[in-house]
């Protein structure tokens, strides 16, 4: 069995700061991490491989330094890692990203066999669109299963998969055929620590690195900024509310006195709310 997992290296959002004066993002020195949602998918992929045998190939499109995240995936136990990197990809939106990734996956399939299943993260924490997965599925003409809470059955011989999918009002149980593209829901599993052998192998292994030509991307006009139908026209700071928050006087007051003042403000600004809470509590 061959499984492909798409991961993205993203800035660790917890560590990003905004410059207090210029209001610009301070990205220097911000550490990068593997998009946390991708780890739920990678772990699921590793579990399937451990059960059914085969190989897991991890791929990403990004700057050369994205190899750090790929190497990390090898230490978790992935069998192979491929980096697609080229200046032509700069400024890609989700349509251009899925274009490049779909050809990358085709090339991976040529080299190491057609994937039976492709995993993506539910979404990224920087892009946060949840569009690249469905985009890849469409371009590769694969069935797509998003927001998967659980893989219930996986039958490689019959080429069938049964999953639990999170829908708005409940869980859909879906059955479909392989190959397909799956995005796992967060919290479905925890990333393993990886064995010592994997750690050593990860440190030593070579990351396969391809540029656009090597990956066989046919049309560079469909990549990067050029191939992106969406355009970022304006970046701006949100306008502050006309007036700042009305401040409750706290100097020299007890918490009880302060909370009485707060309740006074609430009742003045939302008359009737307290009564409605009362009614709800009484079960109307």
């Amino acid at each position, binding site marked *: 069995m061959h499984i492909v997992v798409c991961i993205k290296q993203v800035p660790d959002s917890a560590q990003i700061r905004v410059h207090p004066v210029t209001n*610009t993002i301070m990205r220097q020195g911000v550490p990068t991490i593997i998009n946390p949602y991708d780890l739920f998918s990678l772990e699921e992929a590793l579990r399937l491989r451990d059960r059914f045998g085969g190989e897991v190939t991890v791929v990403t499109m990004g700057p050369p330094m994205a190899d750090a995240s790929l190497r990390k995936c090898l230490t978790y136990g992935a069998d192979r890692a491929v980096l697609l990197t080229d200046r032509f990809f700069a400024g890609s*939106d989700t*349509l251009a990203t899925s274009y490049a990734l779909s050809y990358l996956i085709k090339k991976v399939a040529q080299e190491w066999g057609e994937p039976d299943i492709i995993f993506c993260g539910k979404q990224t924490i920087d*892009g*946060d*669109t949840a569009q690249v997965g469905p985009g890849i599925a469409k371009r590769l003409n694969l069935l797509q299963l998003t927001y998967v809470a659980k893989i219930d059955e996986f039958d490689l011989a019959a080429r069938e998969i049964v999953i639990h999918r999170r829908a708005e009002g409940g869980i859909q149980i879906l059955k479909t055929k392989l190959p397909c593209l799956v995005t796992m829901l967060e919290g479905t599993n925890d990333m393993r620590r990886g064995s010592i052998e994997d750690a050593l192998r990860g440190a030593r292994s070579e990351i396969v690195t391809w540029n656009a030509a090597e990956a066989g991307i046919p049309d560079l006009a469909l990549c990067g900024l050029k191939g992106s139908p*969406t355009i970022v026209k304006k970046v701006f*700071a949100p306008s502050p509310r006309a007036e700042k928050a009305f401040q409750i006087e706290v100097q020299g007051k007890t918490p009880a006195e302060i909370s009485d003042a707060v309740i006074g403000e609430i009742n003045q600004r939302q008359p009737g709310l307290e009564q409605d809470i009362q009614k709800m509590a009484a079960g109307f």
Partner: protein
Amino acid sequence: MNQKAPPAKAAAPAAGNSRANTKKELPEHLKSYKHVWVLIELERGVVHPVSWELMGEGRKLADKLKVDLAAVILGAPGGTEDAIKDSFGYGADLCYVVENPALTDYRNEPYTTAMTELVNKYQPEILLMGATNLGRDLAGSVATTLLTGLTADCTELDVDADGSLAATRPTFGGSLLCTIYTLNYRPQMATMRPRVAPMPVYQAGKTGRIIRHEVALPEESIITKVLSFLPDSATGKANLPYADVVVAGGLGMQNAENYQLVRDLAEVLGAEWGGSRPLVQKGWIPSDRQIGQTGKTIRPRLYIAAGISGAIQHRVGVEGADLIVAINTDPNAPIFDFAHVGIVADATKILPALTEAFRKRLALAAARPAAE
């Protein structure tokens, strides 16, 4: 490398930034694309309220562009009547309706086929969907099939002077928003999350044109099958987006034990409880209780935020609240820029006092005769 991540250069000045290729040169064959469409998300006989919220936004765009607002309703044979009626009530000029047994439950394949067929035939200039699991699953497939642009999770939709859709969303990592255009492709697609826009007013008895469209969707040709559906039990499930009162905590609560103070107040108020994203990452609260851009958007009558700094990703999720009360030890915390009432104090002290005061008041009110 993504649409909302402006390139490092573009992010430099905070305002008035533009890219070189932002000129509109719409190809001839796309010029006939007209009107604003909203997908009515009909699942298991129920329309998701986000569809009505989008109708409100769509109405404004259509009025500005002086075009029609259409509701797109996909569903089982005989299962779309209420949705059609309500679509008119919420402002649709016309409804496109596709009824087919294959559309009984949401599945990506038949929905993508039906939606793309409709778009190709009737050619809307703007197509809006809810950023729900259904909407996000479908929008990505439809946009890729049509090879057009899609802007996810917008917080504001507008049309500019030359009639282009200006879709605004937070951009990663900081206190910034960005406005995204799809200048030279049609339709211009965008998703918006539940509760970002207000619910429009319902006008009973309104009607309009209905255009029924047949799509061939033989069940044999659809590979994915729905085996069953396990509805969520109503109990214990968070319903933050539609709650009247929400109490939330942030890192300022310091630890999981202190977070209990948030839940105590919520319980007394019959409110929903939630928190900022770091609390989910720390495991203090489950992920369906996260409030903000990557969590839930809320629109309560009262929102109490304790120990939350008010980062942009949090702010966009709560700005629709009627009244925001913020408790924070830092008088310069950004949350005081958009809260209505501020308390510069230790939340671990104020919350118990508030809980106690409300408990007494509500008990007192309950003891009074009902006639009052």
